[in-house]
């Protein structure tokens, strides 16, 4: 009984949004067809799909470039953010010295740093510049969330560790890092999306002919008024963003489901 309940509930959770999406596409298709709206203003879903199939090779190539930059930036952000947060937790002085600069990096709009980074890295190495820019955007939420998480360990548990003569290393690995995990994962979810945004925005700034990621496909299609292809590239970007979000949510759920409130499924 209970199992069926949750199973059907789970199917509904997938089915309802999918049905809503299909309905939306049908209405879109009907609207465009009936009103005879030109395809360079608003292409019908069927036309977009056609364009997707036609340009499959080049779009997939661009998708791969954007994906590559996003994932690399994200992984480096995890390493840098968590690493720096651990360093901060070990030394208040290091935190005091560096945290303000991490904030400076965060509050300065990435668009405004992009030209500088591009010049420094050189236009023959745009992908590396994109990586740096995406990393700058993605890195801060992981740093700040993990820093907060490492500090959030229960103070009675801290006392208990002290009572049993735990070493710094033991406090870090057995107490602080597990306490920080939910915070860290929340940071990862934000950063996953930001890494993609960073990669795309940076490519827009890099400008014509330099990149060959999805952002460049959009610019290119726009210049040629090939709106169906623009939509096809947009669709791939959204799909990528959704995939990243779901992947990280799944990871979060896997790691927290046995113990953390946020991941525990309650009855009723």
């Amino acid at each position, binding site marked *: 009984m209970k199992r069926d309940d949750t199973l059907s509930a789970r199917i509904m959770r997938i089915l309802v949004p999918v049905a809503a999406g299909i309905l939306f596409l049908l209405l879109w298709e009907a609207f465009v067809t009936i009103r005879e709206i030109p395809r360079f203003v608003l292409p019908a879903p069927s036309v977009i799909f056609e364009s997707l199939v036609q340009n499959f090779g080049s779009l997939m190539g661009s998708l791969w470039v954007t994906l590559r930059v996003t994932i690399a930036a994200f992984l480096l952000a995890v390493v840098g953010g968590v690493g720096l947060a651990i360093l901060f937790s070990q030394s208040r002085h290091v935190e005091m010295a560096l945290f303000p600069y991490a904030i400076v990096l965060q509050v300065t709009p990435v668009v405004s740093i992009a030209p500088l980074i591009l010049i420094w890295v050189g236009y023959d190495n745009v992908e590396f510049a994109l990586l740096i820019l995406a990393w700058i955007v993605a890195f801060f939420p992981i740093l700040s969330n993990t820093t907060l998480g490492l500090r959030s360990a229960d103070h009675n548990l801290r*006392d*208990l560790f002290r*009572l*049993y003569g735990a070493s710094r290393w033991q406090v870090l690995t*057995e107490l602080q890092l*597990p306490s920080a995990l939910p915070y860290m994962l929340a940071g990862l979810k934000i950063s996953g999306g930001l890494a993609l945004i960073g990669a795309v925005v940076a490519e827009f700034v890099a400008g014509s002919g330099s990149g060959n990621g999805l952002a460049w496909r959009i610019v290119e299609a726009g210049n040629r008024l090939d709106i169906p292809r623009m939509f096809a590239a947009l669709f791939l970007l959204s799909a990528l963003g959704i995939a990243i979000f779901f992947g990280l949510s799944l990871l979060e759920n896997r790691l927290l489901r046995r113990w953390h409130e946020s991941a525990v499924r309650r009855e009723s």
Partner: protein
Amino acid sequence: MSAAGAADAPSLIELSGIGKTYANGTVALTGVDASIRQGGFVSLVGPSGCGKSTLLRIIAGLIAEDHGKLGWPATGARPADIGFVFQDATLMPWASVADNVYLPLKLKGLGRVEAGPRIEAALKRVGLSDFAAAFPRELSGGMKMRVSIARALVTEPPVLLMDEPFAALDEFTREKLDGDLLALWQAQGFTTIFVTHSIYESVFLSERVLVMGARPGRMLAEIEIGEPYPRGRAFRESPRYVEICARVSAALREGAAI
């Protein structure tokens, strides 16, 4: 098994003129004297803010006293193992019951396999053998507290310090745990200092009740209970019990009036 016969042995814990002022100027304790025999069961009662937790933390070595002297006449030094139980069970939510109980042994460098039998024994003592693989959030408040006690006792410490351990539990669970704690104490013989703000609980459990007052935190009175163990329902319902509770209550009121 009682206080009788141990009167001439050197005490385990000797507090003389203990004082503690926190960095912000709060005088948490002044001139606290007390002596606790090895294997004894002493309760600390007093209004909140009278320095009970501070005293417990000083005895545990978590903070240092800044006046007076804390001595360990029977052993010469603070025992390497001290069990500590907090008001909330203070379990690691990410670890199973068994892994929570394993913690003190793990921090001391004992391998999981070696520690296995000791973890099992500790869980058995508190009646949670069947819950080794459960996670804290799957347990009731009383069961969590049992895990906390099992963790404190897994190293078989000579001293068990408890800071209002059952205060957040319902009356029924609390009485059950009171009884179980006494049985453990009688079987294992660890010295217990039990902080509570329940007069009834302090009288039921301990050989001696230390009554404390606030502002500044100080010792007001010591009341011997003198009732043999094991204690049970009969003691809780006896006129003697009511009379001793009234005496503790009067001592507390006297302190508040000053």
